[in-house]
């Protein structure tokens, strides 16, 4: 479903931050992305959520060649990818409801349908009483749930999370992982970038490990 072949990435004229990255993510798989700070995890995630195109190599996602795909076709692909950012990136001037509804509005879903869907999801994750509040008045845990709700509202095929457990205690981190597992069981491909060793120990999913821009190993043996 997602294939990287000899992918390299450099920003501008700088040095390559990713080198010769080759791996395959099967549809419905669950992977951790690990590596020290500066190893290239964020850059790899940026390639996965199509914020950048590679400087070299080949990327295939959902059957499309990303390198040669016309720019106008990228939004439709991005609509199939959900991202939970480390800093959540919620829009403070919008309500919780409008933040979560963003991907549906961007995809041109009818307003009534979108609002009903968002309200239902927010109630399901226990945020039914904060629908019309701004993210700034929510706790860190609530903001994180809003960020996750926004990432999954459009039922993405691929869910990417950048250090989703970085700002929460172990109890909440565990509940989050269970939520991601639930989504994975529903068929969503999951990639989680994390440093959290206790989670890595507890959840035995294959790892994509980056070191100095190279993909070093995968415990499930799926990466080169």
């Amino acid at each position, binding site marked *: 479903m997602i294939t990287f072949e000899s992918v390299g990435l450099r920003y501008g004229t700088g040095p390559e931050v990713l080198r010769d990255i080759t791996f395959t993510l099967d549809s419905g798989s669950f992977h951790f992305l690990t590596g020290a700070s500066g190893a290239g995890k964020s850059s790899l995630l940026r390639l996965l959520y*199509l914020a950048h195109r590679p400087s070299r190599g080949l990327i295939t996602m959902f059957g499309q060649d990303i390198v040669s795909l016309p*720019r106008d076709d990228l*939004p439709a692909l991005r609509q199939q*990818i959900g*991202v939970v950012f480390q800093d959540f*990136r919620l829009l403070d001037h*919008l309500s919780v409801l409008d933040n979560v509804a*963003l991907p549906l509005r*961007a*995809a041109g879903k009818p307003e009534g349908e979108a609002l009903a869907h968002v309200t239902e999801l927010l109630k399901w994750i226990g945020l039914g009483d904060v629908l019309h509040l701004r993210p700034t008045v929510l706790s860190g845990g609530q903001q994180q749930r809003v960020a996750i709700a926004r990432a999954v509202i459009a039922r993405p095929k691929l869910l990417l999370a950048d250090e989703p457990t970085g700002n929460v205690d172990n109890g909440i981190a565990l509940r989050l992982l269970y939520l991601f597992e639930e989504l994975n069981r529903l068929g969503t491909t999951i990639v989680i970038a994390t440093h959290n060793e206790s989670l890595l120990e507890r959840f035995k999913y294959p790892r994509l490990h980056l070191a100095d821009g190279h993909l070093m190993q995968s415990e499930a043996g799926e990466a080169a």
Partner: protein
Amino acid sequence: MKKQQRRTTIPLDRDATGRFLPLIIGIMVLLATLMLVGAVMLGEGLSNWRSGLDLKLTVQVMQLDERATPLAQRVEESLAVLRASPQVATAEPLSGEDMSRLLAPWLGQGELPADLPVPALIDVTLKQQGDIAVLQESLKGIAGVSLDDHGSWLRDVRRLAQLSIIAAYSMVVLIAGAAALILILLVRAGLNTHRDVVELLHLVGATDAFIARQFQRHMLWVSTQGAVLGGVVAAILLAIVSVLGQRIGYVSSIPWLAVPVIPLLFVLLAGMTSRRTARRLLSELP
């Protein structure tokens, strides 16, 4: 409520840079409307004035020395030639009073001195515009007679008026161009200020058209406020000009159509410019 929420996905209405945009657009709409109205009225006035003067000629019969045929006789001969011409509608000599009035700015009020060699003038009105060479040829046999069709100074005045009209239209175009440049700068500033929001929209799958529409809606709304303001002030000023013009006897119709058309054009310009600029800048994103 829903529309309000959607309009502010990018919080452009909070930008300090756009706070004065309605006022700026209002002033530009006012200036452009007054310029356009002025140009149209000048063109119309010139056309009316020319149509009156184009059929007018003046025949001048100079004073000559005592040996020549007397002035009065040469005037009569000239009148006879003119009135016999099929081109001429009327030919009337100017009276002594008319001559005194014409020369009053230089020689003062009152009768002209008897020893002053003032020429006699004949006011000629043609039936229609045409070649006056035949008329000139007919008058050639009478000594001291010349025919003035006011052509040279009429041409100068016409050129000046045309230049004024071109300048007025150019000003309208320049004002519109300046408005477009301001809008381009504001869209660029808006994209820089809200880069994080724009990038997020981009990443959740929003198309360039979706994001550009946010800018277009905002600029349309703000420009409409300014355009209405400028249009209303222009209408009030033109109404005052119209009333004052009627009082002093200057009757020239005001092209009222410009009052709604110019604001509408500015709003369309704002919509098009903001959308195109946003799309062009967004195309630089990956």
